[in-house]
């Protein structure tokens, strides 16, 4: 099995974890890569911010104005 190590692989896993559980190997690959990759550190922050924004949007749809 190919070990994920490019930014494409790692950012793909960062997106995938919104929809499925990552395996231990995948989680380890993400953490090791992110230690030294500024681009993927930024990408991870973007995914977390977007997760929060989508949650707030969802809640906003149900609140009385």
């Amino acid at each position: 099995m190919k070990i994920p190590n490019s930014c494409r692989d790692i950012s793909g896993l960062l997106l995938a974890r919104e929809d499925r559980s990552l395996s231990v190997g995948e989680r380890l690959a993400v953490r090791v890569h992110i230690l030294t990759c500024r681009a993927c550190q930024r990408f991870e922050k973007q995914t977390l911010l977007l997760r929060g924004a989508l949650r707030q949007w969802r809640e906003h749809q149900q609140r009385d104005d």
Partner: protein
Amino acid sequence: MTPESQPAIDPSALGRQIEALRPTLLRLARLQLRNPAWAEDAVSETVLAVLQGASSFRGGAQFKTWVVGILKHKVLDQLRQRAREPAAPEPADAGADELDARVYKQDGHFRELPDRWADPCNELQREQFFAVLEACLEHLPNRQGRVFLMREWLEIDSAAICQELGIAPTNLWIQLHRARLRLRECLQSNWFGAHAR
């Protein structure tokens, strides 16, 4: 009638309240279903259910929360019903390779360092951001938009979406991956990038 047993909605105001909510209900249903006729059906079913159930609404939740909750069930009913019908062919996602090439170099590393994003949900900007977010969601290809909103608006887990739509998990994950990448790119262009300048 004791005060405890009185309905939380004034029957004379009910029609007005539903009418005021209708544009929001229609917008949400269209966003999820990607088909104006299906969305109209889901909203009509919702209004019917609200009228039939209004006497049982006790006001523990906000009226809008209650109605949108009903809409979500009706939208899911539509998705189930349409999943059983022979699907009209949808165009293949022709832009997927171009999207990948815009984000990554051939060696798999990012073409550009991703921007620092500021929290878009502060009090002053929230409404504007949500409008841009919805515009970006509308621009997703139909199939991607449908599954993405099943995850993020209807809050259905991946296994249940596969079951509802009769698709394989790998197919779903590809659709969701592309939707998330497109949404990120659209928000970068129309919100985060625009606000950084």
